[in-house]
């Protein structure tokens, strides 16, 4: 899985590409550990072609960490082929989902 991240104004935009499964879980956990931890995250998932319970667990874990810092995690540009896994586990109710990354980022500034 390819992970890129941009952090601005206490918001990290993490772009994922490839398969987000249990084999990629450690890679994701390491990538989101920074010296400076932002409050909010936007996970852009357009390039993800598969997610399993391991990947979903990583997102939940990140959400918990963010909530401890009064932040949250939003999902952007989720492709329909992985939406199924979110529905099966009802994760679609836990994460706010946006079809545009910029709007997801702006939604934080709108509420702040």
């Amino acid at each position, binding site marked *: 899985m390819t992970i890129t991240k941009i952090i601005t104004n206490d918001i990290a935009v993490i772009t994922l590409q490839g398969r987000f499964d249990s084999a990629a879980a450690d890679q994701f956990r390491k990538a989101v550990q920074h010296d400076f931890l932002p409050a909010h995250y936007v996970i852009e998932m357009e390039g993800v072609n598969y997610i399993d319970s391991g990947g979903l667990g990583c997102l939940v874990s990140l959400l918990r960490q963010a909530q401890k810092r009064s932040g949250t995690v939003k999902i952007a540009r989720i492709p*329909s082929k992985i*939406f199924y896994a979110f*529905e099966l586990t*009802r994760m679609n*109710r836990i994460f706010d*989902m*946006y*079809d545009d990354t910029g709007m997801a980022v*702006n*939604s934080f500034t709108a509420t702040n």
Partner: protein
Amino acid sequence: MKALFHIQQSDTPELKDFFAETHPWMVKIANKPSLEYLLDFAILSGCTEVRLVMDEPDLALRNYFGGGERWGIKISYASCSENDSLDQLLTKNTRFCDSEPLLILTGLFFIHYHKDHNYQDWQRLSASGMMLHCSTGTLLYGKTGNDLRYLSDMRKEVDFTLSPIRSLRDVYDLTMQVLTFEQEHYVLPGYGPEKNILIGRNVEIGRQVELHPPLIIADDAILLGKTVVGPNAAIGKGAIIDRGTTISNAVVTDHTYLGKGLTLSKKMVNGGRLFSAPDNDWLNLNDDLFVRIIEPQGASYFLRSAINRLAALLLLVFLLPAWILFKIATCFTEKKNHTTTCFKNKGGNLFSYTYDLPVRESVAGRFCRALSLNKVQLLVKVLSGTISLVGNRPVPSSPENLLLIQTFDHYHPGAFGYSEAQQLTPGSLEEETSERFFAANRKIANDIRTLLNILIKNLRTFV
């Protein structure tokens, strides 16, 4: 133009209780899901893409609407949180909403329109940011998604109206209204042999059944002899109406069984739940109506048992030579040696049989199925009186299935199964309804018909 439909399940508690697992958009008005009417309207209005935004995903809805191929449009899905405002909805779906004119339907309601009218103009002539309300939802139109952030009431006269869907009464009234006055306004499922009669595929209509229009009967429904259906009746998919029952001004939902000699008027039945329109209330029925208990009577029981064994013996005599030859010819081919243990009766006793023939998809396997040679082991069980010749599809033993057969009043496994004749998917609701119905209404004539059906069907699989 695009359309975004939005719904929250928490808006419809009464429907949720009565229709149990059914998503409010899948609740049917005259045998057609409420969402499909909205979809048809969006298409008539010139929409080529529709997004369905829900707080609770629904598998049945997904399977039914899929990617929209059946309607020639593109359907996509998105989720929303509880109490998302219109503004949040637009923000979360910015890419979808911003590129072209947009129709938004939020809430659960019905649109009265006419399929032959032109709906391409009302929005073009309307100012952007217009809306039309009913008590359970709103229809909005904007030339861009952004226009919908500043709304005003629709002043232009339009050729459609909205009706709220909040209660069971609304669902019942709308079904009656569509059947009685608006049947020609919509594309409804089924073909019409006569005016105001719509009948689905594979419907079985018994002798001396009376049909009084307007009515609609969905696919796979069974009306047994002397039933009277209509006026104003909607019979759902796979519903079974037993002998002599009269249904008027009533709705029978999918896969519901109605017992013998009943009169159903001004009511709506869903499985074991009954809504009465005059009382505007609903109740849970006990199983008396759903499946009537018919105990096997002494003489006919022994007669059936004797006929069963005799017929099994005849079949065995006919099949055994082919079976022996086949075993010799295929002794070196790959085989599936699989022992299955099934429940013998409601008490949880078991019986086992071994399937040791070539795998089903091989040519030898198909040949063996065509001649019903896979039934030889089961026919021996019929001779020993363990199972019937024709009966329920044997239920494999497991803790879950034990719970199932304990509530299965007339379960009696057979070498040839009722639902096998109808080619129903094992484990489906259709199969369970059919199995329970035939088990409760066993008749020698039915058994013979089922047996012949399966034998012929098997032969055809090879041709």
